[in-house]
């Protein structure tokens, strides 16, 4: 480890960023030192992605100071951050498939000839030089679409370096890489360190943080929690800092009598998304599914709902084997899925509220092949009232509702099909506190009525506050199951990030 350097290249102080209804960053600080890797650690929603956007000029902070070499600066746009030498390699690398490697590296700042045309020869030469400096054996003339994921990553890194970067931000760079590729990436990080770049490394994987980071900073719920040198810390301390908060919200979880098994999943597997998923869900139970973003939870749920097909495994509903190949079959079997992304998967903009509610129930509300609007209204009124929907009229276009109320309409839509199993994927993500409470309350009521509920959530307080039992997934597999006293924030996070269990679960 290097000695504590005297001055940071880039430091943030008191950064505040507010979105309507959410304080994404609340006075955070962050220091990046030359030749050092700083790991930024935090749960989903801790504000990591937001700080990256502030650093790269995509978001403007509402308050706070950004200092480059001790002088205050501002990044009103992506260009100005780039000019200052701050560059990010994104989670999903944003590259152009149809362009060559060299063109990708120099997009937006290609060397010019004296006539103002792009100087292809200089561009290729400089691209080759940068690629060599990071030890990548990729031809600058290759088309990007012919490259594999690891090579694309190297191109993204080369692009970041082509602008004379001083600060390199790597946002979960190993998420999509194989073992060998990860080892190569670590070497590259070492190379960048030797070149004196300051590196911000965002990762959920503790093993790699301990392997390559020099310093750590922890955010929690948009606030700065602590920082220090990796040498003086332990996994246990970092986990404690990540989750250590009081469960300050009151969750309206009512004790419910847990009944007979309703849904039994045995050995569900998918070629690329998940493997060997086995669990049982009981009537009246709320089963929480926790995991990091991308752990495969939504993918499993989508296969239960007939959107994707598992390659292996059996599904039993109330003891009977059911094959779920289409959503219609799933709805018929009594399973419904309220998706995470309301915008993309839930609400049909352009249709009024009541027609959104009745969309999957049309066979029930129509007669002789004709829709019966009065029946639809009745059904929609019944279920939206139970969810305390605030709308001027059920005839109103759903697009005019707030996010929370749209979520209620989507939930009402699925409840109206009278399901036995309801899967709620991030049911309260992005909605305001008041609507959250209503959704939680209703979830509890559903379980009380004997419905079996699966709640996929990335919010630990919600998972702990609402679930009777929690299953944790990591990288497409089950990583632990917790009930009763074992349902602690530490256990959940350990299982989710893959730290060896210190106590039997």
């Amino acid at each position, binding site marked *: 480890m290097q000695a504590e350097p005297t001055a940071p290249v880039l430091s943030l102080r008191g950064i505040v960023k507010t*979105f309507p209804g959410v304080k994404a960053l609340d006075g955070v600080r962050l220091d990046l030192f030359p030749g050092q890797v700083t790991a930024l650690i935090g749960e989903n929603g801790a504000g990591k992605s937001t700080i990256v956007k502030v650093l790269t000029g995509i978001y403007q902070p509402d308050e706070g100071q950004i200092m480059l070499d001790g002088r205050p600066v501002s990044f009103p746009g992506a260009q100005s951050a780039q000019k200052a030498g701050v560059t990010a390699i994104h989670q999903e690398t944003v590259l152009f498939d149809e362009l060559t490697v060299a063109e990708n590296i120099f997009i937006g700042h290609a060397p010019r000839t004296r006539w103002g045309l792009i100087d292809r020869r200089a561009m290729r030469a400089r691209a080759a030089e940068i690629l060599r400096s990071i030890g990548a054996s990729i031809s600058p003339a290759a088309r990007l679409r012919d490259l594999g994921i690891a090579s694309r990553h190297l191109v993204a890194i080369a692009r970041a370096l082509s602008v004379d970067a001083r600060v390199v931000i790597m946002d979960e760079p190993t998420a999509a890489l194989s073992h060998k590729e990860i080892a190569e990436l670590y070497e590259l990080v070492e190379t960048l360190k030797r070149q004196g770049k300051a590196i911000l490394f965002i990762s959920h994987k503790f093993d790699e943080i301990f392997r390559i980071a020099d310093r750590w900073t922890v955010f929690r719920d948009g606030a700065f929690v602590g920082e220090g040198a990796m040498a003086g810390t332990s996994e246990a301390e970092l986990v404690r800092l990540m989750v250590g908060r009081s469960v300050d919200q009151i969750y309206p979880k009512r004790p419910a009598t847990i009944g007979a098994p309703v849904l039994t999943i045995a050995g569900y597997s998918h070629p690329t998304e998940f493997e060997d998923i086995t669990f049982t869900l009981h009537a009246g139970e709320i089963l929480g599914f926790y995991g990091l973003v991308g752990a495969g939870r939504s993918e499993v749920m989508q296969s239960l709902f007939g959107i994707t097909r598992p390659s292996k495994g059996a599904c039993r509903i109330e003891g009977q084997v059911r094959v779920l190949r289409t959503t219609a079959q799933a709805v018929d079997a009594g399973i419904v899925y309220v998706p995470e992304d309301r915008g993309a998967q839930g609400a049909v903009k352009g249709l009024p509220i009541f027609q959104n509610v009745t969309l999957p129930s049309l066979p029930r509300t129509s007669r002789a092949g004709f829709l019966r*609007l009065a029946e639809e209204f009745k059904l929609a009124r019944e279920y939206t009232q139970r969810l305390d929907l605030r709308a001027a009229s059920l005839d109103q276009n759903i697009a005019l509702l707030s996010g929370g109320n749209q979520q209620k309409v989507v939930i009402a839509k699925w409840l109206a099909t009278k399901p036995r199993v309801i899967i709620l994927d991030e049911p309260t993500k992005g909605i305001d506190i008041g609507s959250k409470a209503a959704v939680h309350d209703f979830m509890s009521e559903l379980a009380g009525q004997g419905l079996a509920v699966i709640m996929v959530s990335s919010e630990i307080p919600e998972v702990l506050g609402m679930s009777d039992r929690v299953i944790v997934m990591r990288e497409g597999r089950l990583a632990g199951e917790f009930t009763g006293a074992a349902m602690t924030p530490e256990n959940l996070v350990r299982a989710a990030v893959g730290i060896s269990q210190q106590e039997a679960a």
Partner: protein
Amino acid sequence: MTILKSREAILALAILALLAVIASRFPAFVTPGNLARVLTDTSPLILLALGQMTVILTKCIDLSVAANLALCGMVAALMDGMGVPLAVILPAVIVMGAALGAVNGLLVWKLGIPSIVVTLGTMTIYRGTIFLLTNGAWINAHQLSDPFKALPRMVVLGLPIMAWIAVAAVALLGLAVARLPLGRALYAVGGNPHAAGYAGISVGRTQFAAFVLAGALAGLTGYLWIARYAVAYVDIARGFELDVVAACVIGGIAIAGGAGTVGGAVMGALFLGIIKNALPVVGISPFWQMAISGSAILIAIAVNTLGRRDPGRIILKQAEART
């Protein structure tokens, strides 16, 4: 919903204003007899706009409708020449139009080719087929039987049959959109294909159904067109597909799918029809006619875009806040 309603109200007012302006210079234009003539003239546009509307609602577009119309019309004329009775020709052209639409629909549904590409291709094929059938020869009025030519012009209750067919199609489609599950599916598929799929509605099948309906209407219109103008040739209704799309756009059918009404499509068609009929009467050159139609399209799109901007922006902010 309120936006949509007010948009149609605006369009209705625009049509009334247009009529008022024309009437001030040429009062004879707004006599009932002449308005009936305008409606009859606009009937093909209304029929095709109805079909096009269902296709556009599902996020697709059908550029082959005019070629479909011409091919079906030509086949109708050829059948008439062979002495086939009208009672057989009519269902035959409807079925044939539907089949041509089904070709589009299958290519979009089963192969997932973008509809604009599919229908650009079939448009050319359908026109080419007319040429193969006739070697480019015209079928003129004297070669067509009298009953064949008479049906669209037959006047019942003050309107020719042709106009009545358009009125009936408007009523039936209005009912279907409001009261059949397929009608609801059109909006669901166009408004949010993912959500529709989750709700058990097949996106591809719904698009297929829309193409079949558009094709059937085009086939029927093919007969009406040939019979009314009493002439059939390769280039019948060439370029008419653009008028049809224009009528839909002016009528507030969102080109991105999922929004629009039967009333809007009809008014969009009437708006264009009135301009086409009135400008020559008032003495404005055909050049202005095209410029005015074009401006109407751009204004309609601008109104639609402005009307839709606000909700979109709110949702985006929330999407950002979730990261």
